[in-house]
């Protein structure tokens, strides 16, 4: 059994491993090692805690840990890469839920003002993370509609919940007791607020929500650390909180919107008015293949539609065929393409695309004018030139991948339906644009067999 000094010494080591691990996670070549180091840090923290004087009963811990291990291992092995956004949402939610419970248990001991306030904070943030992640999971897995759910008086209702929550927190802190009715009210209201906060957010804004929930799960752990006076929780929780916040910020910038705008506007629920008229030029898979064969450089621009059609593997096969043919192939990836930060990169990496071929928006844009064919697969709003040209467009000012500047653009699309934002895309009517209608996977497979044949 270890005394406090040894435990805290172990926590310092754990914190160092976390910091080092996060640093190495920032480079593709060292990322895997970084994750391993961070896992070692976690192991050190857990073992040190288990050896402390404070733990006197093991049986229940073993039960909980065994269930957690089995579920965790199974989930991480069985989950399909395309389902990664909802997986991350579930893990976020469980972390938040655990912090809620840790804060709650802290109230059973001797409680002073500081503990009751910090426990309340960890319960509120943890509860919101838990229920908010549950809704995010539902939206991402299409268990519930991924559209933004907006109703009249929503802001009024949410403000009322928030005020009631603050009142209950204050009432509890004034007279803290582990069986106070205000305690249960706080838990209920925090869970309700988490649901209400995520409901009005539409599918394409999910990258922001997931990073924000990620940040919350860290902050909840951090607050729980204050409540139980544990340094490693504070350090790691705030590291994660800061990291999640940075990602949130990057995602908002990539959509040229502020965080409040994403959270409260119910974007995607409103119908835009700008209409584009013009002729679209359809193309067959045979003709598209002929043009691809003649091209010396091709850029693929994937979006959420690629994930839906599960087209990443055939896309990679087509890319490799083109490369063997001597074509320069790159994959241009918008920061908010898909349903979570970096979603497209993970799918393409799964399909064996080399990571040095995955090009960020700001690096590909200056080169697009010299690219022969840009192939848009299931992306819409992130390649909509209206963001550059049409001041009335709801996405005006959002940085996009300027595929319209490439010599030829292929758009693989099921129908002419508009994208998530519900706005027409002038790209489809461009003189250099050819529309290849049909399921993206089927279209690409058709091109592959044409190419081989």
């Amino acid at each position, binding site marked *: 059994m270890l005394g406090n000094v040894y435990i805290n010494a172990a926590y310092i080591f754990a914190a160092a491993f976390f910091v080092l691990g*996060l640093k190495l996670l*920032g480079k593709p*070549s060292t*990322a*895997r090692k970084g*994750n*391993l180091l961070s*896992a070692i840090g*976690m192991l050190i923290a*857990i073992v040190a805690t288990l050896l402390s004087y*404070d733990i*006197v*009963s*093991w049986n229940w*811990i073993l*039960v*909980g*840990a065994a*269930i957690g291990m089995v579920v*965790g291992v199974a*989930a*991480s092995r069985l989950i399909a890469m395309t389902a990664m956004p909802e997986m*991350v949402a579930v*893990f*976020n939610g*469980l*972390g938040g*839920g*655990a*912090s809620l*419970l*840790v804060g709650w248990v802290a109230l*059973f001991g001797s409680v002073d003002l*500081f503990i009751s306030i910090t426990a309340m904070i960890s319960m509120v943030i943890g509860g919101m993370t838990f229920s908010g992640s549950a809704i995010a999971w539902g939206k991402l897995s299409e268990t519930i509609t991924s559209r933004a759910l907006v109703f009249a008086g929503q802001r009024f209702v949410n403000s009322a919940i928030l005020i009631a929550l603050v009142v209950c927190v204050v009432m509890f802190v004034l007279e803290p007791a*582990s069986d106070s009715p205000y305690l249960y009210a706080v838990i209920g209201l925090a869970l309700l607020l988490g649901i209400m906060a995520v409901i009005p957010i539409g599918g394409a804004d999910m990258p922001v929500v*997931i990073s924000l929930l*990620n940040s919350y799960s860290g902050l909840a*752990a951090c607050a729980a650390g204050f409540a*139980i*006076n*544990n340094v490693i*929780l504070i350090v*790691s929780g*705030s*590291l*994660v*909180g800061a*990291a*999640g916040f*940075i*990602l949130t910020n990057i995602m908002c910038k990539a959509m040229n919107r502020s965080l409040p705008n994403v959270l409260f506007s119910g974007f995607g629920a409103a119908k835009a008015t700008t209409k584009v008229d013009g002729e679209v030029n359809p193309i067959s898979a045979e003709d598209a293949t002929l043009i691809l064969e003649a091209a010396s450089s091709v850029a693929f621009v994937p979006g959420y539609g690629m994930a839906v059609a599960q087209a990443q593997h055939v896309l990679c096969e087509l890319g490799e065929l083109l490369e063997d043919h001597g074509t320069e192939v790159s994959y241009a990836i918008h*920061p908010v393409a898909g349903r*979570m*930060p*970096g979603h497209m*990169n*993970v799918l393409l*990496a799964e399909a*064996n695309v080399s*990571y040095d071929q995955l090009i960020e928006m700001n690096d590909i844009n200056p080169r697009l004018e010299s690219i022969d064919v840009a192939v848009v697969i299931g992306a819409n709003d992130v390649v909509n030139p209206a963001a550059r040209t049409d001041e009335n467009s709801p996405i005006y000012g959002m940085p996009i991948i300027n595929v319209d500047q490439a010599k030829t653009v292929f758009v693989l699309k099921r129908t002419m339906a508009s994208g998530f934002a519900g706005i027409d895309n002038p790209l489809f009517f461009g003189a250099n644009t050819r529309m290849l209608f049909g399921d993206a996977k089927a279209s690409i497979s058709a091109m592959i067999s044409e190419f081989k044949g």
Partner: protein
Amino acid sequence: MEVIFLALILVLSIFLGFELISKVPSTLHTPLMSGANAISGITLVGALLAAGAGAASPLLATVLGVVAVTFATINVVGGYLVTDRMLGMFKKRGAKK
């Protein structure tokens, strides 16, 4: 004094977090997020202390602690493994299967 000390740790950790993450390429955003998420499972440490307090704490506290241990273990174990699985797929040309 204790509170000031903890607050200092909080502020420094937040700055460190900002510094560490701000330069990560977007290619790695998903593994970074899920790796960070696994770290937020550190709340498991608190959960272990809550579940292991034994007869000294009320039954409800132990039950809540055990549920917390289960949640946090899923978060930690699943988070690290899935991140590793994802990162294992990021390969450079030449290293392909």
